[in-house]
């Protein structure tokens, strides 16, 4: 189970620990800088990227504005194609539905395709509590699972591990879950991938039940789409007898044709490829090909709360490409675990507080996990203005106001612990509205400048621990202006 947000440290504390972990910082720096340049090249190949991006954003916005209509259309189309549709208000309900469906097959094991939605709801832990073992089959998820670790990246959950660490995990842990790692395993990526192939093949060939998410659901046809690279997805989607797909309600797109936009945007933004190696599309069940039973679990779990916020709802456009993580200077130093949820990086900083609320210290600190540099917005293939939403959520933390919590409208109070800051902001605003007072303050600062300490006490200490303060000048600009040309322009 993901650490309950109430128990997790606030972002700045977790991030501070990460900045001292030089291995982690090197791993993250190398990986994010590698993919950054590749993405830019893949995007530059398409002269119409801006138009595709605008269309992607517009299609998602349109879908969200009519989400009830499209969800009903999905339900009808999937049912007509032989699938069964289930609705889950929250994580607990989704986990209960999946657990019941697995039990009804009589099986005690499932294979899983990497899925953010099941990560979000803690499905593996819920299944374990019911005596069902879930095997992650994506290479990175396998590394995380074998290492008793948590994912730290949307696309590359084990990005915080380098090849030597992965070799050690495989050597010591694979045998406990199934076929052990080959003797003499080195840290060559190709050898590590081969070890994963051998270890997981047994699971694929014997599995009767698979659990997946989906990248897209096409409402008009009821088609689900899974985009992947390794083929573990294809294994899970085609070999077992029963397939259960847990999909957030924001994953719907209206028409088949809309795929022409998203299948161009996603691979280039995500793995920086023209096209990812494998994309699977299925509609209900097909006689003699693939699972005989297909269940679609439509998941809310806070998404409708986000939908109710006029600024924040744009976060639901997200197609989970992870481009924003790979360009984020804060993610690069803090690492994914500091974000305390399945969704790290800039998108996590706006998604998690909307899905879970801003009650815990961690969730209330996430909107501040950004310098608002805007690199995330620049690369987002569906143009989510992440800085705008971050600021909106900061407002929710310090000012409170109307929000929707579990489907109910409420007015929340400002979070605790911001009283001094609030007073300072108010005082500054007052001074700025009263230039005379501002000038008095400036003059006081100038007169006492010889006395200014190099290291500040209180909240200022955070600044002076790593950076010097600028010197206060002998004269402010307004005093200089008044002194030299006071007769002009002092309206």
């Amino acid at each position: 189970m993901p650490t309950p947000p109430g128990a997790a440290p606030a972002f700045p504390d977790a991030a501070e620990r990460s900045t001292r972990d030089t291995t982690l910082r090197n791993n993250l720096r190398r990986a994010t800088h590698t993919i950054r340049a590749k993405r830019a090249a893949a995007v530059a190949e398409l002269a119409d990227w801006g138009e595709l991006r605008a269309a992607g954003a517009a299609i998602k916005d349109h879908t969200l504005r009519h989400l009830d209509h499209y969800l009903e259309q999905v339900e009808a189309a999937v049912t007509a194609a032989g699938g069964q549709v289930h609705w889950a208000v929250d994580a607990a309900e989704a986990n209960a539905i999946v657990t019941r469906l697995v039990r009804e097959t009589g099986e005690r094991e499932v294979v899983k395709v990497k899925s953010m939605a099941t990560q979000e709801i803690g499905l593996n832990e819920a299944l374990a509590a019911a005596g069902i073992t879930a095997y992650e089959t994506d290479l990175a998820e396998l590394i995380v699972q074998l290492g008793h670790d948590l994912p730290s990246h949307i696309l590359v959950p084990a990005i915080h591990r380098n090849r030597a660490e992965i070799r050690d995990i495989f050597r010591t842990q694979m045998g406990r879950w199934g076929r052990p790692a080959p003797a003499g395993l080195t840290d060559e990526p190709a050898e590590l991938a081969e070890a994963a192939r051998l270890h997981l093949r047994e699971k694929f060939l014997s599995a009767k039940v698979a659990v997946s998410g989906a990248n897209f659901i096409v409402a008009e046809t009821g088609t689900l789409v899974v985009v992947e690279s390794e083929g573990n997805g294809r294994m899970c989607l085609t070999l077992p007898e029963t397939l259960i797909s847990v999909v957030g309600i924001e994953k719907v797109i209206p028409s088949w044709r809309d795929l022409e936009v998203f299948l161009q945007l996603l691979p280039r933004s995500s793995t920086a490829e023209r096209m990812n190696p494998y994309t699977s599309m299925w509609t209900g069940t097909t006689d003699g090909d693939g699972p005989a039973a297909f269940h679609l679990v439509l998941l809310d779990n806070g998404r409708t709360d986000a939908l109710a916020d006029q600024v924040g709802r744009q976060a639901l456009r997200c197609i989970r490409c992870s481009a924003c993580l790979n360009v984020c200077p804060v993610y690069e130093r803090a690492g994914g675990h500091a974000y305390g949820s399945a969704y790290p990086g800039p998108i996590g900083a706006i998604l998690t507080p909307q899905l879970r609320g801003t009650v815990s210290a961690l969730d209330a600190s996430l909107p501040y996990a950004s310098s608002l540099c805007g690199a995330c917005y620049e690369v987002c293939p569906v143009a989510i203005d992440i800085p705008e939403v971050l600021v909106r959520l900061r407002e929710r933390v310090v000012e409170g106001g109307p929000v929707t919590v579990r489907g109910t409208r409420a007015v929340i109070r400002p979070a605790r612990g911001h009283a001094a800051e609030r007073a300072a902001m108010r005082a500054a605003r007052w001074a700025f509205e009263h230039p005379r007072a501002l000038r008095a303050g400036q003059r006081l600062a100038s007169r006492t400048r010889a006395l200014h300490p190099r290291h500040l006490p209180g909240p200022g200490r955070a600044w002076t621990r790593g950076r010097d303060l600028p010197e206060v000048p002998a004269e402010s600009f307004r005093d200089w202006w008044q002194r030299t040309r006071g007769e002009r322009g002092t309206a």
Partner: protein
Amino acid sequence: MSSRERVLGRVRRALADVREEHPDTGATGGAAHTDGGPARDGVARDYLRVHGERTAAERVELLATHLADYRARVHRTDPAGLPDTVAALLAARGARRVVVPEGLPADWLSASAATPVPDTPALSARDLDAVDSVVTGCAVAIAETGTLVLDAGPGQGRRQLTLVPDHHVCVVHVPGQVVDSLPQALERLVPHRPLTWISGPSATSDIELSRVEGVHGPRALDVVLVTTDAPSTASSSPR
């Protein structure tokens, strides 16, 4: 109240401002569009249908280049040379047993010494795991992305045939089966068929974000471009 009603109710309440602003295309479905859905508000499709103008030959050339970029091995022949090409690829791989999807033209494997294993419903995934190679056709190929799309039609078979064996030989009729772009490919495909889009062999970027070819799917992908004058066979017919 059912969970279905609860979720849909929450969606509608969350969109109250949208309904106020646009009462006629409001959140409950609203004014019907020609395709039966709500009118598409503000979706401009001014992106390109195709990235550049190409002759048929240039299109095939681009497909070959992009397939090779992703480490598929590309081979060219004509219909008369196809059996020998397929036989040579299987021999080079040392393939002894080759699974044959229903509807695969008989002559494609006529020159190979490998034992054909015809696909039947009884053939399990474990059985497929003991097979060396698979030979299929495809539904359509996309030049701009280097992608082959299989739609489980004749000569392609069930999805797992091209997944479990470690070697896939895919035959593409050029130029008829090749389109320039992804939008053009979607137009040719039938959504309700199970579709597998393949762009090179299985790969992963999970270790330090560097690409490694070959994890669970076939680690070797041979693509045979067969030049034919025959009319396009790319548009799938429902089974």
